[in-house]
């Protein structure tokens, strides 16, 4: 039982609550509302129902759905929505969160365990929220002698770089934050930052296990970067563009590239496992050898940020696999062309093409993510010399086989402009 002061009076309790409400009202009226109006004055608002949208109309939109829907529709076309919500950070972070939970349950089922059970009663679905709260509440310990600026900046940079990869991924036709002409190259250029961050963080930790882990991460990521890029090269040859949307469109016009470049797809899958430091390539984090590798000195939310970043990276690489080899958002139409909703008419927000594309893209991406989670349950860690040998000798040769197959397909007139299999 919680104790309360001896001179407790219910009237005083109610009075204090009233005081609180009074002060909140005063502050909201004198500071909050003017602040909202100042912000709304500078934010350009779209014309709604033929009239200019004023801050007053904007604030009253909650009571009039005919005003709310066009405002939401307007914001869905802005860059902010693209970056922050749908193909951007929120979508990626949601998929990352689901991946973390699914991974634990999936691995548990593979090993005849139960997995998270208690948080949230039903199969432990709130385990992630519990973990997040725990990580936020934990103390962040900076090791003595650590290089503080790098130690603090590296986890943030890790998440930021992962999110920058996500910004280049198109999830539906037109739904991409940055539709650049050299999208695929940009993805590889940004992925090149990860070994730098891992190395800097491991050095800044001023501890021997992180440093060993960081050196291993560097070896591994650089060894697998070349087969990674080369495996995407055969797709570029087949589609004739570096733009990710263009690659998906060329697959919609012919067939999925996994049928023409299965070896490249395999190499891409293996290399992305290595880039993600997942088992069997988790040497940088080998917990049975070097404590936790380059993450040894992470604690609290620093660990949380790096985990979030690595799962966002998992999503980004799985989505890249889907875009390069599995036809992106291509799939049969399942959503009706028109929908009718009972009370509020949300038809202006409804886009059957985008909904369909999002459904298939998400399903395929999740399939690839599950495929990436699978080796963790069935495979042991491989030795570092075998890893380097695989990366430098075997995978590079395999990608070249598929590049020649792609060239033969194009020069044989089967794919490419005016090819046999192009619809």
């Amino acid at each position, binding site marked *: 039982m919680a104790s309360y002061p001896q001179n407790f009076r219910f009237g005083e309790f109610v009075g204090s609550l009233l005081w609180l409400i009074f002060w909140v009202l005063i502050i909201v009226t004198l500071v909050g509302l003017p602040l909202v109006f100042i912000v709304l004055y500078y934010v350009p608002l779209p014309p709604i129902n033929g009239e200019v949208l004023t801050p007053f109309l904007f604030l009253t939109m909650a009571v009039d759905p005919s005003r709310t829907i066009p405002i939401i529709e307007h914001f869905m076309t802005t860059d902010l929505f693209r970056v922050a919500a749908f193909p951007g950070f929120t979508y990626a972070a949601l998929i990352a969160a689901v991946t973390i939970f699914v991974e634990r349950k999936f691995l548990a089922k593979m090993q005849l365990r139960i997995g998270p059970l208690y948080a949230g009663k039903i199969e432990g679905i709130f385990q992630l929220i519990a973990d997040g709260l725990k990580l936020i509440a934990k103390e962040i310990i900076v090791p003595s002698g650590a*290089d503080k600026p*790098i130690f603090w900046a590296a986890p943030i940079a890790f998440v930021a770089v992962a999110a920058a990869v996500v910004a280049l991924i198109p999830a539906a036709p037109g739904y991409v934050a940055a539709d*650049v*002409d*050299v999208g695929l*190259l*940009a993805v*590889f*250029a*940004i*992925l*090149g*930052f990860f*070994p*730098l961050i891992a*190395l*800097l963080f491991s*050095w800044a930790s001023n501890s021997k296990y992180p*440093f060993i882990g960081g050196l291993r991460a*560097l*070896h591994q990521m*650089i*060894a697998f*970067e070349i087969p990674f890029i080369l495996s995407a090269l055969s797709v570029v040859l087949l589609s004739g563009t570096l733009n990710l949307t263009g690659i998906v469109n060329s697959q919609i016009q012919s067939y999925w590239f996994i049928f023409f470049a299965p070896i490249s797809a395999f190499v891409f899958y293996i290399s992305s496992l290595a880039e993600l430091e997942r088992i069997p390539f988790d040497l940088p984090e080998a917990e049975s050898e070097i404590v936790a590798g380059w993450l040894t000195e992470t604690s609290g939310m620093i660990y949380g940020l790096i985990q979030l970043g690595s799962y966002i990276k998992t999503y980004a690489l799985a989505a890249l696999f889907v875009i390069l080899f599995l036809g992106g958002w291509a799939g049969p139409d399942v959503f009706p062309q028109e929908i009718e909703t009972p009370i509020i008419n949300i038809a202006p927000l409804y886009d059957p093409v985008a909904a369909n594309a999002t459904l298939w893209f998400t399903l395929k991406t999740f399939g690839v993510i599950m495929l990436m989670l699978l080796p963790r349950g069935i495979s042991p860690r491989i030795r570092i*010399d075998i890893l*380097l*040998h695989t990366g*430098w000798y075997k995978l590079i040769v395999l990608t070249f086989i598929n590049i020649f197959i792609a060239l033969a397909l194009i020069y044989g007139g089967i794919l490419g402009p005016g090819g046999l299999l192009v619809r």
Partner: protein
Amino acid sequence: MADPVFIGVAVLTVGAAIVALETRELIYGAIALAVSMLGIAGFFLLLDAPFVAMFQIAVYVGAVAVLIIFAVMLVRTQALFTTKEDKKRKGAGIALMLIIMISLGALLLASGLNGQFGNFNDSEAIDFREIGQQMLTYYSPTLIIMALTLAGSVIAALALARREDITTTSDGGEEQQHGRTD
């Protein structure tokens, strides 16, 4: 008149380069060098050459900067900074740099490039596909020479790494393999 983005990128590039030279911590110098190279990639983006910019990032930040940081971490830094630098030498260096930069700039302004500057702004950016096509048709000898140079250097690197006059113990055989595969 001047583009604010251009000024921002220029300040970033030059400032990071100065930090890379002036900082006492070698590791910060290496990071500043990486930032400076990012700034150069920004210049390529401003010049409508995203292809070159991406390769600038992938090669210079993703590989060269990592290599430099890797080397810096494995070197004892205190041994390198025993002597204090001379103020006269520093002043002379800055003066020399200024003279070179001003004369280069004057040369560029005096050459024909300056007169066409107005036209460059409006003209269409050259597509990287076009460059690739030219590279494989008209300029193919250049490509072949570049390929031969690169292949020669790779073969030379492999030959240096596979030197057989260095005797290794049975334990060091692994090390030898590392040196080669890296």
